[in-house]
């Protein structure tokens, strides 16, 4: 199977990757192409909550696929770690690229500032002048930035530190398993530090692969099909940190940084045809402000619609045929640049606000997964060991729901999915296609349940149970786990068709 290596850089990278996981869990996938996804998260800020949440989600997703395979509608895209592919027997694997020498280290220590000559010290002082903040929210010189909280909006630091990527074991592993037909996608934001610097650095190393020593598959890599999304400012920030200090990260700086980075990109990325498909996305909505916490506590931002739309760029990228994304000598022959657009400009987006393609791509699948979660949350305990679909072989019984597959992987994943939906719904601009707290009949906004010939709406959990029983009849499942996921996929699909006309 062909692979897509997704480099998710910085906090935005992790959040977009989270959205991608949710879409893939729902069964959203490119038409006519099947890719194994290999996420590689690059973020020096290890305690970043967004990163930790994404890692947990990916871990659960992977565990589910490991147990049931990828032929069941939900969770139908294989996700692997780079480590898994290089060494399939390795148990402990991570989705995160292990940046060396950033933990507990100041930037000046990383560049051995004290060992530099006077003239080089003066040059470094100029290049890295200015102020930033440490993890205790104290103002410090840029050279004294502690890098384990990220690059705090300073791409000039990021571009130095992330350049170690080309010499890392991860990059060598990535290059060694990269095959003809595989693709690369890079997710980054343009208005911060890590993403803005990481994107050009990684792209440069891929396109210059031939000149790197100790790298296999150089040719494939240099002429690989590379797509990227660069996320322009899309959220607001509180101007002060929790302690009342003025944060070095300000929304007012976002635009200036974006302009500077775009100017650099126009010369060094799009300008020299380094990239096959580049997606731009932004939102000028003056929405909810996020807590400004650059320190060790956090960066736990609510999920945002822009992140989901960015994840859709990856699906779109995989749908572009190889023939339209050819490269020669590391240059894209016909680069393409895209933006995301919608039918209606609204603060609370529903499925009908999308254009037809996007709506058809995600509305049914997300509705299916939401129905699945609603049943699990509100009805499963009442149906287990009572309904025919549960008591038929292989049995879905109380033992099943106490096993780690359900109790840990599925439950945790679907709880994260619900959080993701709720966070997007309350964010500004919001994405709220569902009435999550409402009954089944009113679950999907913009969609009316079909009535029967008596004019009555017959759609409740009993109907859901009936459909589960109907769909499970005469099907040979290989395991209760496979049955659980496949059955709910098939039943929710039929319910949406029958009741909502999907």
């Amino acid at each position, binding site marked *: 199977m062909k692979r897509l290596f997704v480099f998710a850089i910085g906090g935005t990278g992790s959040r977009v990757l989270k959205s991608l996981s949710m879409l893939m869990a729902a069964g959203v996938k490119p038409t006519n192409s099947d890719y194994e996804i290999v996420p590689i998260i690059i973020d020096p800020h290890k305690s970043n909550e967004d990163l930790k949440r994404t890692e947990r989600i990916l871990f659960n997703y992977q565990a589910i696929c490991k147990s049931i395979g990828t032929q069941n509608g939900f969770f139908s895209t294989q996700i692997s770690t780079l480590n898994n592919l290089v060494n399939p027997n390795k148990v402990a694997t991570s989705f995160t690229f292990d940046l060396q020498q950033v933990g507990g280290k100041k930037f000046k220590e990383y560049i051995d500032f004290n060992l530099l000559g006077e003239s080089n010290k003066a040059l470094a002082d100029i290049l890295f002048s200015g102020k930033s903040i440490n993890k205790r929210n104290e103002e410090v010189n840029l050279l004294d930035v502690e890098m384990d909280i990220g690059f705090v909006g300073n791409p000039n630091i990021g571009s130095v530190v992330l350049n170690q990527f080309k010499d890392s074991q991860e990059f060598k592993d990535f290059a060694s398993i990269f095959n003809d037909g595989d693709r690369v996608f890079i997710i980054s934001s343009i208005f911060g530090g890590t993403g803005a610097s990481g994107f050009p650095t990684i792209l440069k190393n891929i396109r210059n692969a031939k000149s790197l020593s100790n790298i296999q598959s150089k040719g494939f890599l240099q002429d690989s099909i590379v797509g990227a999304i660069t996320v322009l400012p899309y959220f607001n920030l509180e101007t002060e940190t929790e302690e009342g200090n003025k944060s070095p990260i300000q929304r007012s700086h976002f635009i200036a940084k974006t302009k500077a980075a775009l100017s650099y990109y126009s010369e060094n990325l799009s300008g020299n045809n380094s990239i096959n498909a580049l997606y731009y996305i932004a939102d000028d909505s003056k929405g909810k402000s996020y807590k400004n916490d650059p320190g060790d506590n956090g960066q736990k931002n609510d999920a945002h619609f822009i992140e989901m739309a960015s994840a859709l760029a990856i699906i779109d990228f995989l749908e572009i045929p190889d023939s339209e994304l050819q490269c020669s000598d590391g240059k894209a022959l016909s680069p393409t640049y895209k933006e995301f657009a919608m039918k209606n400009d609204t603060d609370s987006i529903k499925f009908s606000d999308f254009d037809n393609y996007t709506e058809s791509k995600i509305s049914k699948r997300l509705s299916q997964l939401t129905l699945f979660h609603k049943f699990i949350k509100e009805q499963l305990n009442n*149906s287990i060991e009572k*309904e*025919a679909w549960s*008591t*038929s072989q292989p049995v879905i019984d109380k033992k099943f729901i106490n096993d780690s597959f359900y109790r840990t992987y599925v439950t945790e994943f679907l709880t994260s999915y619900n959080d993701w939906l709720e966070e997007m719904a309350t964010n500004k601009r919001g994405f709220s296609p569902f009435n999550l707290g409402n009954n089944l009949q009113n679950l999907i906004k913009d969609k009316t349940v079909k009535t029967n010939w008596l004019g009555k709406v017959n759609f409740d959990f*009993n109907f859901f149970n*009936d459909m589960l029983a*109907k769909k499970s*009849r005469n099907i040979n499942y290989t395991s209760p786990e496979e049955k659980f996921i496949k059955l709910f996929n098939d039943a929710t699909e039929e319910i949406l068709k029958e009741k909502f006309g999907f």
Partner: protein
Amino acid sequence: MKTLFSGMYDWFGTYLFYSKDMGDHLNGMDITCTDFIGTPWYMIVGFIMLILTLFIYAIQYHIYDKSRFNKKHHLWIMMFVNLLLNFLVATILASNSVKEGYCSELSLTTMDCIGFGISNAIWSFIFHFIITSITVFRRLSINCRNTTFWKP
């Protein structure tokens, strides 16, 4: 069929719930007391019992066939309804046949009619029990395919 039903009711019914005379009457003893050439009530009631039981089974398992009516206690409800209907059918038919006249050598009472009703009800229960225990039939149901007395 006549022999089958006669044997069935005679084996579990006659002496136990009603008299031998009632058994002879239901077996078709004609009004002139010549032979068993009268109306074969055993066979008629037996057929009705079978059809009624099958119909009530089908209502739950195949016609309605919904998850809201597939639990064990729902099966008990249907069994009870079946039992009651079969009791009434047998009692009423036996009582009417007695009223229409019977062999003068026989001695029949109302309690015999009720006894036959009880016997028929028990047979309907047994028959219902057997049908719902046969997996092949049950498997044709969507929501009640595991509804049986044998499973919790």
